[in-house]
């Protein structure tokens, strides 16, 4: 069997991937890859925090997290026993980094595919949200929030997102105590209502890659979900980026040997924006790698101020922030921030060099190939391509899209979105008052 993923004589993904769109909207994709007796599952469903009321965004993550706590047929423990005894895995998660989607992922030995698909369908279609499980999860969650409050990275990020996005925006983060109060006020009915209103076939995408018979997998999944009610159309509510509100903030914590600094501003970059790749290539030159990007070469390699420095765009189907994060010994914070701002300003003035552009382009294409080196990697790439509306052929077209990016396009796209004076600077750590 020869597929896109498995030989040099590559069959395009667009030809090798079998797919079906069901009447209720479910989209199914399967790629056969017979080198190893395993399969990987990846999927998406539009039930993230953007669909929850602004005051109670965490209903979305809790609903996704509680799906596996019991179904009409099996208790949590029975489900776990059935999956774990066959070394199969399955998870549903929705976190703040993607306000739109619930991520579904799983894997098993290919002999156990029926077990995995049965559990998947049963959990999606008949969760019971048992009261005692929710109460237990609330206690655990309160402890986890407190655990996060102890991490300089979490505190700096949370404070930055709280400052740059207003409370009604889905990327706004509440403080730890606010989140704890909201967790404690949640009731089972909240999850049931959110599940009833948001979960359904219309936005469901499932991708399976591995040692399977594609037609049989498509048949099995179709049998499982074809009579599921469509539910709401996946229309994403608007969440425009607010204007920048620069400022400097410090979160003081005790006994922390290393501090975290986050420099952040809202941007209009969505993953689906035509400028996405050009902006992202420019960002890579500035700060994708602690070892080779401009920020890394200056602040880590030359000045030795940090172990890690990165810049990124949090782009999903919702426009996310531009972020630079750096860890630093508290006494070296000011030097690290000054160098970071200076290097970012220089990059904005000069733009990407011809050599950087070549290297970032070849890097991006090479990395794409490397990331497609496993069933799970291919499944995630397909899932993303389909859920962003690019289609399966995006995997085939990606290298050409990267190759077409010019210096002018990269510079213009980046300059349009990043201004040093817009950045809100938050430090979390043990700083003298």
């Amino acid at each position, binding site marked *: 069997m020869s597929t896109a*993923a*498995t*030989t*040099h004589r590559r069959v395009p993904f667009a030809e090798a991937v079998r797919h079906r769109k069901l009447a209720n909207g479910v989209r199914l994709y399967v790629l056969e*890859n017979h*080198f*190893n*007796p395993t399969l990987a599952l990846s999927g998406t469903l539009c039930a993230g925090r953007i669909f929850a009321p602004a005051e109670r965004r965490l209903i979305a993550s809790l609903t996704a997290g509680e799906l596996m706590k019991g179904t009409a047929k099996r208790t*949590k*423990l029975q489900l*776990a*026993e059935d999956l*774990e*005894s066959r*070394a199969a895995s399955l998870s549903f998660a929705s976190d703040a980094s993607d306000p739109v989607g619930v991520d579904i992922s799983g894997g098993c*030995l290919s002999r156990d595919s029926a077990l995995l698909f049965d559990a998947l369908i049963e959990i999606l279609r008949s969760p019971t949200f048992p009261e005692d499980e929710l109460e237990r999860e609330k206690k*655990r969650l309160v*402890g986890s*929030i*407190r*655990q996060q*409050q*102890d*991490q300089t990275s979490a505190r700096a990020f949370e404070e930055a997102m709280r400052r740059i996005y207003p409370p009604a925006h889905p990327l706004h983060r509440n*403080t*730890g*105590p606010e989140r*704890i109060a909201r967790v404690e006020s949640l009731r089972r009915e909240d999850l049931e209502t959110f599940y009833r209103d948001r979960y359904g076939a219309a936005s469901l995408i499932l991708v399976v890659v591995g040692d399977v018979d594609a037609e049989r997998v498509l048949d099995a999944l179709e049998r499982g979900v074809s009579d599921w009610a469509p539910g709401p159309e996946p229309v994403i509510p608007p969440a425009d980026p607010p204007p920048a509100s620069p*400022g*400097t*903030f*410090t979160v*003081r914590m*005790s*006994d922390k*040997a*290393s501090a975290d600094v986050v420099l952040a501003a809202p941007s209009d970059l969505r993953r689906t924006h035509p400028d996405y790749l050009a902006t992202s290539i420019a960002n890579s030159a500035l700060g994708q*790698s602690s*070892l*080779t990007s401009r920020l890394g070469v200056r602040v880590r*390699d030359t000045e*030795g*101020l940090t*172990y*890690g420095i990165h810049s990124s765009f949090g782009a999903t189907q919702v426009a996310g922030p531009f972020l630079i994060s750096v*860890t630093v*010994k508290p006494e*070296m914070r000011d030097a690290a921030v000054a160098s970071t701002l200076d290097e970012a300003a220089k990059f904005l003035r000069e733009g990407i060099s011809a050599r950087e552009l*070549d*290297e970032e382009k*070849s*890097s991006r294409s*090479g990395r*794409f*190939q*490397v990331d497609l*080196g*496993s*069933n799970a*990697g291919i499944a995630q790439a397909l899932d993303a391509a389909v859920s962003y509306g690019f289609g399966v052929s995006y995997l085939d077209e990606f290298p050409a899209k990267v190759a077409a990016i010019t210096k002018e396009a990269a510079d213009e796209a980046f300059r349009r979105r990043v201004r040093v004076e817009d950045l809100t600077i938050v430090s979390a750590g043990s700083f003298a008052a």
Partner: protein
Amino acid sequence: MNEAVQPKPDSRHAAPAGDAFELVKEKAGFREFRMLANGLRVLLLPNRVAPVTTFAIVYHVGSRNEAVGFTGATHLLEHLMFKGTPEFQRSKGTAVAAVLEALGARFNATTWFDRTNYYETLPSSALEVAVRIEASRMRGALLRDEDRVPEMTVVRNEFERGENSPFQVLYKHTFATAFREHPYHHPTIGWRSDIEEVSTARLREFYETFYHPNNATAMVIGDFDEEPTLALLARYFGPIPGSDQPIPRVYTVEPPQEGERRFVVRRAGQIAWCAMSWRTVEARHSDTPALAVLGNVLGGGITSRLHQALVEKTLALSVSVVPWQLRDPALFSIFAPVRPGVEPSEIESVVRREIARISSDGVTEAECLKARTQIEAEVVFDRDSTDQIAASLSEAIAVADWEWYADYPAAIRAVTPEDVQRVVLTYLHDDALTAGLFLPKPGAETEAAGGEEAEEA
């Protein structure tokens, strides 16, 4: 990318690589070769899951080979290995990381108790670049003082980040308490003052002692053909001579522990942590598979005994069970962050009760089967990606040898419920216990989850 590092057609690919190597052994798809000129071991495993290949090299040197004054030297040296060689350096536009980044490679290096490993996963057509880089830095690292000075503070920040984590603090204290004579006593990152003060000359001495082909294993995993790959390795590693001196061995043995040991760390924090560890055996020991199965019975997934007894009962936020597998006798550890409001000592009581249950009643055949299935499946899942195989194989080579990895599934399959009960009775007793607590310091950050309100500067 720079012309100097473009893969070039191998002019010698017609030369029979067989002249340079002897085939040592063949098993489970692996072929082990030895380079005749210098003793470099080479391991090949074709895995054509994608047009991707992983090249990795493991040096048999880790923090186990260090002593006071130069703890952390192995790791610091690993960092300096990215600063360049005559051929690959930033001033020539050919920095190791830049060259690899431009290929889209997934690459890094890591240091651990028993080994240092360097790896590159890249499009298979670019394998030669990885081989050239690793050959170049095996003997050609520049190790300049002007590179060490800024890199020292980079590594110190890595150390500081570790100190922020209660888990890492607990694990460092656990090893420092359980091992008093053997070098597993000190953490791989090193002690802070050693990181700051160790000289470039001392690092060079360390490099000259341990970085030789006869102290390394190179592996190629993925999409490649054997003959041209061996020719490639012969071309770049062949000219490197073996070491003049034998590689020094570690002869320090930790004597038996004669009574339980306890420690407490008090620092600012929100959450208490509990750790319990018992002295066990080296990875090659015949009880290692049973200890691995025990680890899974206690901590593998929602259905495991400690998850049920601690997390489901809302005493702990999570629990991790680690049956450490190292070259010399190591530990069997349990770590758990304690849910606020729960007395940390309650965690220890529950763990003791669960261990006592296994001591007296054993484990069921079903539990044992589930654990074996999960561990065996991990080996199958490894094969989904070349870098995952390389990572697992590197650990195996560091603590035993590659055959240990190849034989591991069969060894796990042979574990019986009686074996699991026997290792509990043999190792998990109080004389071999090191128990530690991380306790949030009273007075610091007592606000529920809030700490201080952020202030505007």
